[in-house]
């Protein structure tokens, strides 16, 4: 009988232990985080390490990270969100942010920001602007880059007897371009694009911003027919005579190949290009784009924001995770562009990039693309406009047609 009592007591204790463990496990919040990978930087490994750190700091939250290759990300995220199977928290491209907000897929985080350690001043101004829509804040900038750094091949400049620093103005670049262009010998001054993609939009936007123009005005109306925009588009069109032929199907990747094989004197790329150039045998330098004499080059922002989904049952945990991922001591470890947190970016650039001051200044001046929920249609119209103007349609006519289409959306 005592044996039976001992056995019963032991069983009861074991059961209690099992139940306690099970109960603790069920109390743990499982947070689903989706991100994409744009470069071969081994990002997922670093993210997993950061996630471990987050889980140690927040033992009641377990994070499931899903990293999706960049080309598939948009389709998979959109399908999942549309079907109601989206993650709790994810990165979204800056250009999708307003659409996700308008669709009611993500939550406004103004109250959460107000009660947290996150402050808009901690981030690049243009990056913070990209999370705002209709007076509310819809996420937190995660990583950024500017698609308007001019990387130069110093050997080609030396051969042509041109000072690379002269290309930082429109006038200087236009004066230098003929000497840097020799199609018969496979040499071109600058890599420009005009294919059906976001690249020509980003490039022409940078030209427009650098000339003091905008794509959409403060009322959301198309401003591509403004004198500043027309002048910028005319300049872009004029410069294509110094770019490799086949502009209407020219993609950024092709321009990159041409720069890496010594065909191009200047390529326009984000700062993330530096590691690739460092591993090449090109003697290169970089400048913060170019602007008309007396004006400051203003590049177009690219990058990703962290958002919390309306459908998430774990919004509080999701916000904790965002606070963690954008923290100064974490942000630099978990992004494959440049951290959106200015202090983290500064440390990251000092350690990993040449000319960190030039990059920081360019990031501080950069502007996002139009914050419209119909941005993707605006972009499509701009792509058509660029193709029209590069295939012979007068710039003013192409811009007027684009504005009519944009204002009719």
């Amino acid at each position, binding site marked *: 009988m005592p044996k039976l009592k001992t056995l019963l007591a032991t069983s009861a204790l074991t059961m209690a232990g099992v139940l306690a463990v099970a109960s603790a496990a069920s109390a743990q919040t499982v947070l689903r985080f989706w991100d994409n990978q744009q470069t071969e930087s081994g990002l997922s490994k670093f993210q997993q390490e950061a996630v471990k750190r987050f889980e140690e700091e927040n033992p009641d939250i377990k994070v499931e990270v899903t990293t999706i290759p960049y080309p598939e990300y*948009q*389709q998979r995220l*959109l399908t999942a969100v*549309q079907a109601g199977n989206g993650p709790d928290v994810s990165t979204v491209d800056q250009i999708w942010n307003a*659409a996700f907000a*308008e*669709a*009611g*897929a993500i939550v406004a985080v103004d109250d959460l920001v107000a009660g947290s350690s996150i402050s808009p001043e901690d981030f690049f101004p243009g990056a913070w602007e990209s999370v705002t829509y209709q007076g509310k804040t819809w996420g937190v900038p995660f990583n950024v880059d500017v698609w308007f750094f001019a990387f130069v091949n110093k050997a080609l400049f030396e051969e042509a007897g041109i000072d690379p620093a002269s290309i930082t103005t429109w006038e200087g670049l236009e004066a230098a371009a003929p000497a840097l262009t020799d*199609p*018969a010998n*496979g040499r071109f001054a600058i890599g420009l694009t*005009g*294919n*059906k*993609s976001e690249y020509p939009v980003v490039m022409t936007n940078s030209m427009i911003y650098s000339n003091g123009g905008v794509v959409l005005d403060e009322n959301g109306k198309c401003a591509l027919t403004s004198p500043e925009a027309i002048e910028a588009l005319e300049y872009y069109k004029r410069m294509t005579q110094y770019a*490799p*032929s*086949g*502009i*209407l*199907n*020219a993609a950024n990747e*092709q321009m990159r*190949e*041409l720069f890496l*094989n010594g*065909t191009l004197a200047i390529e326009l790329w984000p700062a993330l290009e530096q590691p690739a150039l460092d591993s090449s045998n090109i003697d290169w330098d970089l400048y913060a784009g170019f602007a008309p004499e007396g004006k400051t080059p203003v590049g177009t922002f690219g990058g990703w924001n962290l958002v919390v989904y309306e459908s998430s049952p774990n919004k509080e945990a999701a916000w904790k995770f965002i606070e963690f991922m954008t923290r100064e001591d974490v942000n630099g470890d978990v992004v494959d562009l440049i951290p959106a947190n200015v202090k983290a970016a500064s440390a990251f650039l000092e350690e990993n990039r040449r000319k960190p001051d030039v990059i920081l200044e360019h990031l501080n001046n950069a502007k996002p693309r139009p914050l419209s*929920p*119909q941005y*993707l*249609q605006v972009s*499509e119209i701009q792509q*058509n406009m660029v*193709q*029209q103007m590069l*295939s012979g349609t007068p710039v003013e006519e192409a811009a007027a047609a684009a504005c009519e289409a944009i204002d009719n959306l």
Partner: protein
Amino acid sequence: MWMAYGFMMPAAILVAVLMYWPMIATVRESLFTTSFINPKPQFVGLKVYADIFSDPVFWQVVRNSIVWTLGVVLLQNVLGFFIALLLNQHLPGQGILRSLILLPWVLPGVVAAILWRFMYDPQLGLINSFVLRFGLADRGIAWLADPSIAMAAVIFVAFWKGFPFSTVIFLAALQNVDQEQIEAAKVDGAGPVRRLFDVIIPAIIPVAVVNFLLTTILTFNYFDIIYVLTRGGPLNSTAIFPTQIYEIGFGQFRFGEAAAYGTLSVVILVMIVAVFMLIRRPLLSHREV
């Protein structure tokens, strides 16, 4: 009888759920203003279709789809047939030749398209290096950037990728042609050309019809090659239904319009197939006479 229906049920349910329901849902979606930013869509009837019909891009897509399909199907089947004729001769190294000819077909579409994008590159492409070496042009031709030749360039890639499929089918058909009929024609004094037109081609017509039909449907719905090479550009000169549907649906989140494009693409494909079936009937009846 009932047992037969019972056995068919699982397959029938699968087909209904996986094929017919999505098709019906697509047609239904095309009657609503569905987009990502408008998750509570409104019924607008045929308005989406009316808007599409009034858009010149739609008619450009229709023209492009027909030119693309006809171009690829004719080229790949005609060349496929002649290569099958060659491979049907008892040539030395025939086995290796048959394997080599299959290579383009074995390559995934995206890989083939990337390969050809390099070949067509105006500055670095292999094709332009020949063009320049033989003095056919004074600078590299922008094959994929010139709206007047971009469609021909993408058709050529699809034809290169697809002709082995037609070759294999034609080869199988040629090997089943009754040798006694060929011998009899020879005895009657028929030369090779006469034998080809009066014996071989009539014998393989049923297979040729199936081959044309299959390649028409596959080509009309082909996505990878054009998307990788041009994304439908320049100036929509290579935009066909699958690339346009993807751009509108996933590129711009306009699901209702993408669904309408999808529905219209099925209607146009059915019309092409119907014309094809009408042509097929006299061909087959002629053979039977």
